[in-house]
């Protein structure tokens, strides 16, 4: 059980999580700024042509450019890139077959996500849950593998030292 958590991997994932949340907050802040500028512009237009504008908030939310961003949706859309980087960074310290397979599987999934599923399903609760499971699952897998690889390495080093001593 204690093999499931590795402090270095934990720090790596924490860094990834913070970078993700920070970038999403920045995206939302930029969008809100854009919306407030457009809201002011629409208020002026509304006085000249009330029929074309109608309810300002509804018009903003219906448009593509100025729609309100959902925090969880954006978290899902951008959620795979930090995970991708983490898995590649992890390859420096742990070069097992499973790590390489994970990195390549993630590459294929990220292509699918960026081109199709990310836009299509990121509002879907199940898809959001799936991305969350991916994060948690990969955290435990990578921690476990790191611990095991470290122990094996220590073991082989110990045996080589023992062998050298015997000679």
């Amino acid at each position: 059980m204690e093999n499931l958590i590795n402090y270095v991997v934990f720090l790596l994932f924490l860094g990834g999580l913070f970078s993700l949340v920070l970038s999403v907050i920045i995206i939302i802040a930029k969008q809100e700024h854009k919306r407030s500028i457009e809201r002011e512009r629409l208020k002026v237009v509304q006085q000249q042509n009330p029929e074309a504008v109608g309810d300002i908030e509804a018009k903003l939310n219906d448009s593509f450019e100025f729609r309100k961003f959902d925090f969880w949706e954006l978290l899902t859309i951008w959620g795979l890139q930090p995970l991708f980087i983490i898995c590649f960074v992890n390859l420096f310290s742990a070069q097992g077959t499973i790590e390489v397979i994970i990195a390549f599987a993630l590459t294929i999934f990220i292509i699918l996500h960026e081109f199709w599923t990310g836009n299509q399903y990121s509002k879907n609760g199940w898809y959001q849950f799936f991305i969350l499971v991916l994060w948690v699952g990969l955290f435990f897998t990578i921690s476990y593998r790191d611990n095991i690889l470290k122990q094996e390495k220590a073991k082989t080093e110990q045996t080589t030292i023992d062998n050298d001593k015997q000679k």
Partner: protein
Amino acid sequence: MIELKIKGNKESYQLTKKLDYLDISLTGQFDFNADSRINFRYDNYNLTFENRNKLFKFAEEVRGTSLDKLILTFSKYDFETAFVNNLANKKSTEIGLLKAIFLIYYWIDLPLTNPTDLDLEKQLFNEFVVDWTNQPEPQKDIYFIDKRHVTPTNAPYIQKLIDLNLLASFKVQLIDNTTISTCFIPLVKPGVSRENFVTEFDTKGDKTYSFWKNILKDRDIRITNWINNRF
């Protein structure tokens, strides 16, 4: 005979809560070399275009024009003066519907002249028609909704959205009497507050509202795909 027909609410529901449907239609022969007259029916006015070529040229001129220029373009052709003079009093919702028929005609002109090679239906669902102004400014567009939304079960919701000025219906009747009916988000799409979605069959307005949001989601996915995957 081919008939293109637009139906929409010309009163702003958000401001006046009134319903006043407007029918605009183009009827005639749309073959490439057809030389017969094309009837242009606008509400109670019966106007005519000399032939298909004149109409095509006119549609090209109308694209991207502001209201003032639109009146100028109309006055150049010999329409009834009462109709042209009336244009100046019309509000933006109505002008948007008037422009829509010419924009859509221009958009589907090729499949109408060459129905064997080009699929008309493909052009009328989940597509954009841009009112291209040739100026560096945000361009307005017409968006045809996806085919899976146009079903008999959705008909009451679509009707409600037409009343709210958020959609307008478009029908094409082809030579072999097949009709294609679709809906589009018009050029002038006002913001409609949430309480206006309430109807008798949908007392909280939730179903109509989520139907509307689904239509918008399709549009947004279409735009995002284009932004992300263009080359």
